[in-house]
């Protein structure tokens, strides 16, 4: 399958996903609304202080990535498997990688729309300003996106049915939404909880993003990067190796 044929394939998958209402609600509206709420609360919270508000941008831009990568991707793949659509693809020359990659790119398009939406809300409504370098920040964001999507692709490839897809993607989504600092700031959690939060890959991504957004030098940067890189390697290799067609 060459590049132009992959684009055709991508175009049709895109049409199918974008015709659905799920991606609009969960991929775009929900992350923007949530980000607006958190931004509003934190920017008015005297106790939390301005620094917590500044840090929150790095956290809320991961909500859209979580919703599409960790929920949207595995649920769509599991649905295709459940309906027997993957079984039909199995007897064509398409590789699992192409299906997963196409689905990932489509979901990513909505994550990027929500990223732009959240950024506009922060800049226009709350007068937020990124202190660090945009280039480094976007590179870090890309790494976080790839890591989260690898987790989603891994879940989608391995789950035997829709029920377990729902369970595993919800577990991954909600634990990371609540306990990695995406919504409730890491800094406000008790130390004990912070230890637990350190297990979640997104916590490391958000640490990196916070440091990049404030322009601090990346303390423990390498450690966080290694954790995210491990997610990518294990997630993608596992997905290709254990991919289930039916």
């Amino acid at each position, binding site marked *: *399958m060459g590049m132009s*044929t*992959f684009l*055709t*394939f991508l175009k*049709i998958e895109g*049409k*199918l996903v974008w*015709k*659905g209402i799920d991606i609009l609600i969960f991929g775009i509206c929900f992350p923007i609304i949530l980000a607006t709420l958190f931004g509003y609360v934190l920017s008015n919270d005297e106790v939390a202080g301005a620094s917590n508000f500044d840090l929150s941008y790095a956290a809320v831009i991961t909500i859209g990535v979580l919703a599409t990568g960790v929920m949207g991707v595995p649920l769509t793949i599991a649905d*295709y498997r459940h*309906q*027997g*659509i993957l*079984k*039909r693809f*199995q*007897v*064509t*020359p*398409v*590789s699992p990688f192409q299906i997963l990659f196409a689905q990932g790119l489509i979901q990513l398009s909505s994550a990027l729309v929500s990223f732009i939406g959240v950024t506009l809300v922060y800049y226009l409504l709350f007068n937020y300003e990124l202190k660090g370098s945009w280039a480094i920040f976007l590179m870090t964001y890309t790494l976080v996106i790839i890591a989260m999507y690898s987790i989603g692709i891994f879940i989608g490839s391995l789950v035997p049915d829709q029920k377990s897809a729902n369970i595993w993607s919800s577990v991954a989504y909600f634990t990371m939404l609540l306990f990695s600092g995406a919504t409730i700031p890491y800094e406000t959690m008790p130390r004990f909880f912070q230890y637990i939060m350190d297990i979640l890959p997104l916590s490391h991504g958000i640490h990196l993003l916070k440091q990049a957004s404030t322009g601090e030098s990346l303390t423990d940067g390498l450690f966080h990067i290694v954790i995210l890189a491990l997610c990518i390697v294990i997630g993608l290799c596992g997905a290709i190796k254990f991919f289930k*067609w*039916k």
Partner: protein
Amino acid sequence: MILTVKNLSVTYGTKKAVDNISFSIKRGEVIGILGANGAGKSSTIAAVLGIEKSNYEELTMIGKSPILHRKEVFQEVGVQFQETNFQDKLTVRDACEQWESLYKQTADVPFLLQTFGLVGKETQLVKSLSGGERQRLAVLLALISNPKLVFLDELTTGLDTRARRMLWKQLLAMKEKGLAIVLTSHYMDEVEALCNEILILKEGKTVFHGTIQKAISASEKATLEDAYLHFTGEEEWV
């Protein structure tokens, strides 16, 4: 040989769904796999395609293993499943475009749409087609890559007489040009119209393998339908 299957077995738990089946076909040949529901027809096809785990001595299509060389093999082999599901929002045109994009070279799609009576339906959702139309679309998609070999699992179930005749005519024309076909069917008129050879299964085992004439003469019956019932042991029921 376009397809060679030697001593293929499929086991579910302790039950042998397919028991030591062997057959092969050449260019331009059609083999019909017959048997009652649950006799192992679909399991055989799934195992031959590499979808179902199986044990075998030999399994090659276009000279290659469909399991080890999946991509190369299915570049030249088309498949129509008994039940074909499509994504909810897919239109007929999307379905064709999607399937076309998977192959290096493809057939003339407008011509296929014409032959399969789907002209004017391009913008309709696949879900909104009638059962017969969806079935014809599934066969069309199986043929979209100009395959050398095609698997058709119950190809005309749910089709009206005219649509069946139309499909037979098209398949016979393609057979003339060298297309090899493996099909399953419950209709003996269809089998007689299309097949060179038949394989009758009963509880996963081959109870007859050979030409239609041989089936009739070996069973000492007058028609293929009676011969079929004789081999499957169902004649005492009718």
